[in-house]
């Protein structure tokens, strides 16, 4: 049986009906067509499905969709505003923190949550903030550089 779900995603409200077994990731991807949130491991280990829920970064594969009822969700599609890239997105491009790009949406959301809570992180704090997100391509080096670069830009 499906249950009603009210989701606020990227500042838009959706009234949906979902099964209790559906996780937030699948609802975002399949019901709302927001495929930027990636499907990696489904067990909360890889971080590819990270989104921000009420200001906290969460692995959307571990959140049942109904647990997100009434909550504010931000996905990678909501990061840029009015066609203007978020400083994190700009820095990820400028520093080439992106290779295959599969971890990128989750990395950006973890980084956003980190900077929202700690606008001037040290390198060690950035590494710590991203350690729930796995990336095979970059060795995290340029991702960490990009987050520090974005922090500086946001602070200016």
């Amino acid at each position, binding site marked *: 049986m499906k249950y009603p779900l009210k989701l606020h995603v990227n500042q838009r409200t959706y009234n949906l009906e979902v099964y209790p077994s559906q996780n937030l990731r699948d609802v975002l991807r399949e019901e709302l067509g927001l495929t930027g949130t990636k499907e990696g491991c489904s*067990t909360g280990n890889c971080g590819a499905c990270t989104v921000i829920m009420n200001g906290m970064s969460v692995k959307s594969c571990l959140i049942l969709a109904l647990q997100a009822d009434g909550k504010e969700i931000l996905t990678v599609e909501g990061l840029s505003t009015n066609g203007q890239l978020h400083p994190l997105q700009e820095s990820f491009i400028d520093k080439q923190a*992106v290779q*295959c790009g599969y971890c990128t949406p989750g990395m950006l959301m973890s980084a956003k949550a980190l900077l929202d809570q700690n606008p001037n992180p040290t390198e060690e704090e950035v590494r710590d903030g991203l350690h729930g997100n796995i990336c095979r391509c970059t*060795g*995290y*080096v*340029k991702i960490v550089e990009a987050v520090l670069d974005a922090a500086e830009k946001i602070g200016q």
Partner: protein
Amino acid sequence: MSEFAILGKPTPRVDGIPKVTGKAQYAADLSVAGMLYGEVLRSPYPHARILSIDTSRAERLPGVRGVITGKDFNGFRHGFMAHTRDESPLAPDKVRFIGDEVAAVAAIDPDIAHEAVELIRVEYEQLPAVFDPEEAMQEGAPAIHDHVQRNISAEMHFNFGDVEAAFARADHVREDRFYSQSVLHGFLEPHACIAQYEEPGKITFWGSKQSPYFPYRNLASAFKVPLSNVRVIQPVVGGGFGGKNDTFALDYAAVMLSKKTGHPVKFVYDIEDVLMAGRRRHPMIIYMKTGVKKDGTLLATECRVIADGGAYTAVGPMTIYLAGAFLTLPYKLPNLKYDAWRVYTNKPVSVAQRGHGVPQTRFAADCQLDLIAKDLGLDPVEIRLKNAIEPGHVTVNKIHISSCGLKETINRSTEFVNWKERKQELAKEREKGGRYLRGIGLACNGFMSGARLHGHTACAVVVKVHEDGTVSVLPGATDSGQGAETVLATMAAEVLGITLEDVHVSRVDSFLTPVDPGSYGSRVTSTAGPALLIAVGKCRTQLAEVAAKLLDAPVAEIEFRERKAFVKGDPTKQMPFGKLCRLAYQYGSGQVIIGEGYFGQNVALPNWDTGEGDVANAYTFGTQVAEVEVDRETGQVKLKKMIVAHDLGKMFNPLIVEGQHDGSIYGGMGQALYEECLNEDGLTLNPSILDYKMPTALDMPGVMESINIETNDPLGPFGAKESAEGTQVSTVPAIVNAIYDATGIMFTDLPITPEKVLRALEQKEQGGGPIVPASI
């Protein structure tokens, strides 16, 4: 000022914006109207005969549209070469590892597909299984493939010079055993595809493939349709590293189920499928015997390799070929005997992975070199410089070296860390005692820039110039994240004097893009690159001819830069590039500016039987210096610094190059210190990213430096060679040698886990030898 406008500059990647905005579409993000969802049933046994499969209950489940088994493929088998085709899309009669695919279903949603798979009843007769390659190659071991003696899937035997005579005159000979473990490619995007079969015999296939022309050819064979009926469309690919070359069960099953049901069918594997049953790097047991002169000059190596191939052959013969052929790089080695056996075991299949076979034997050879240096009282840098290959060298197995900056990479990387001083400083620090032991080590590599393949080896590119001055590049090569699209766009923009924004690089669509062997073996810059230069050169010539007429100047005087066509030496005669293109399309009866080119390695084929000959046009060389810290209390090893010096011929984009080095270091560090597919009686014990221990951002070294050495290879595009794989080759031995410096213990058995370190330190304190036994 640089002679180039874009080349060599840290420009952004051309695929950056779609990837940071979530718009990039990977295979799992796609959907097609009327699509069904597929799932495979896997074997729970490592080795068993399939007696019967009852699919009736699954078929009756509401929502199920189709069920298939191995029998549906009518005996079709696939493999790397005609005589190694030992793999079926779905196992028809026998399963050979836990996870071997047996059947597949298509249903209206993924949950129903999952439920249906569990309703399939397979009756198995379990067979004795074998998991250890050395046991598997004994007489009387269980036969994994009925026709194969002693489970030998492939073997290679090379014999160059006279190793026995060389050992007889050597001042010092040592023999060691090394073990390089099973590791995953580690791509984050699991395998996924959608297939649509339409009568009569038309296949459209969207799949996460680093080499999309593999399924193009394989699907045509499997479904007996003309190649022109197979349309393979490549979505954005979430990493490959050698693990997304082959055509897998899901790919064949999607097409077969689409054929059966009349609907498109989508398959998305879980990462658990990949971790449990997916392909991985060949584990190798390596026996290495090396003889040297007193001064460290290498005289001979005799190497025996037993490679654990898993259940099927796949690309395995190539793996053990390269593992042997590259023993003569990067050091001069006048005598080599190499005997390798790739052995079937009842485990997941071993294939190519970044560095393809070379990292395993280079780990053994470069670590043994440090043991030899210690035996002779030589410095590790000194022994490497003494033996380093130089430009123009021809190896004993007839590999011809053109450009070679190896000595410079050794010098520059060791100068960067003040090798001698740092080594002494760390030794003094260790004498003081304390919790942490720090040490420094190095290793070198030689690698191929663009694998030379038997059969079709050429890459091809088509370039179209649009009327508005923008350009489409249609390569057969693919970008699975490494930056190939940006590299190709950079070359096109440089030649036409336009910007990266003006160039669009298409992904593969086999209806439209030229056929390509595949993007592995560092083939894109090295092999697709020259093809692109030919294609874009033709466009440039056509445009120059039009410009010459319009600007009233000789063709040879036309130059392209800053989005303009110029007449050399006359600044008054110029024209915007976009205007030139528009006028070209209107000139005379209208010129359509299009160019095409193909390029294959101009070297003779290597001889598979003898191991002689070139495997590429050009070769890269590199050195890595690692500094590690070993915690005596916990046994944990932390990589603190990694310096890479790489001879890449010519640097196209420093950010891409650094990114490739970072990725190689990450993969190599994972293999050296953390990762292993743990297997017990055929079962993978750690099928989650957490248990598999892929390193996180916290594990990376604080200091990483890339030093690029440009040697301008005569055959490389703009002089360039690979810079994506060679570094993976020397990462592991550099780290292991640094641990040897820190602890006096040479760990010959990967990965170097805290348990192994603690045990070895304890043994050493009790007076044990300097080398840890390989098995633990």
